[in-house]
């Protein structure tokens, strides 16, 4: 039995090692390095992915337990060659500095906009409250998310 899950629409199976995380699979097996290993224990948020449409931490998801789940990583958002509006908004707002938090912020925004298409600044800040940014002071990221809501 090799439980399968999908990553960006493609079927994957978990490795034999029961303790491998989804982050390990994404980065080491699938070469999807947009999800980062900023702490590997669930605080920094740089490993963020969408799991069945909601924001989750790939470093805290055991790959073996992902059977049946649909995983979306940042790489899916410009799969057709055109950056997603939230990605464009983040760049335009000056919210991308070192960029290490950015893929996670993109997915946090996508997860929010899927259930709240026109978030307020407070709602946008709450959506990224579990994602650390050390460069930008968060204001420009919130600006971008609110602007994307008006797109």
């Amino acid at each position, binding site marked *: 039995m090799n439980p399968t899950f999908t990553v960006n629409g493609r079927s994957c199976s978990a490795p034999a090692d029961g303790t491998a995380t989804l982050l390990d699979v994404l980065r080491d097996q699938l070469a999807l390095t947009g999800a980062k290993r900023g702490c590997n224990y669930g605080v920094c948020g740089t490993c963020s992915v969408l*799991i069945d449409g909601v924001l*989750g931490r790939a*470093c805290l998801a055991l790959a*073996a*337990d992902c059977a049946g789940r649909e995983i979306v990583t940042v790489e899916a958002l410009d799969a057709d060659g055109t950056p997603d509006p939230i990605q464009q908004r983040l760049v335009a707002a000056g919210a991308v500095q070192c960029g290490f938090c950015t893929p996670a912020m993109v997915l946090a925004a996508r997860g929010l906009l899927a259930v709240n298409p026109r978030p307020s600044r407070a709602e946008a800040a709450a959506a990224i*409250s579990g994602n650390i940014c050390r460069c930008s002071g968060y204001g420009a990221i919130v600006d971008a998310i609110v602007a994307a809501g008006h797109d």
Partner: protein
Amino acid sequence: MTGVAFHRPSRLDDVLALLAADEDARPLAGGQTLVPMLNLDLLAPSAIISLADIGELRGIDRRDDGSVRIGAMETHARIAASAAFAGGQAVIPHAAGQIASPAIRNFGTIGGACAHGDPASDWPAALVAADARIEIAGSSGRRDVAAADFFQDFLTTALQPGELVTGIVVPPLAGRGIHHRFSRVDSDYATVIVACAADIAPDGTCNVVRLAIGACGPHPARSDTAEALLTGRMLEPALIAQAGQMLAEAIDPLDDVRGSAAYRRRILPGLIARALESLR
């Protein structure tokens, strides 16, 4: 870590049998506590047993008597969004909605959090304030334990080896509820938690009050004398302060990077007053 087996049974009895057969096997709920420990090499289980397919562990169900049964595998996010809670039971979704951060709430479970039994976390105080009961299953049978008896010490609960939390039952509670947490920054563990379910009449008379203090000792603190002091009385600042002092004496906090024990005792009465004010 190679050689760690992974199981995902679909029946609770199979989970219990696996746990009974191997004392180094660990159940996996939402993973938000277990997996960081694996990543940090703090745990080396022989096997991991996922609870994801155990239907009995799911559901947030309001029963005819007004109690609410929460399956152990329900996430903090689902509990926070649930309309099943009424009256003083509001302390439960209010607590759930403040745990950690959105992604943790999306996958962390109430059963996993209870089984871990970290006195700095949010559930213990909320469940004690709500007079909740913890449902437990093991290969020797089922039982349930009052929350106040369940959370015993730092990472120590009433669970015996091989036992699982299967659900939490919150009794009907009159009035309103609040989970008031004070922390350094929003996503941090709390420095002090005041969980409260109380029925306060419009004129300020306190009919019923339940106060549990979290993050201030090895298990949540509650004071019968403080609650008795307030019950049936008009809630005036001096009285509330007196009750607050009793609770400040009842807690047993440590000095840590979030604050000294003395600081926690000092701010507790004010936080209790704030919590009660909001429940009028």
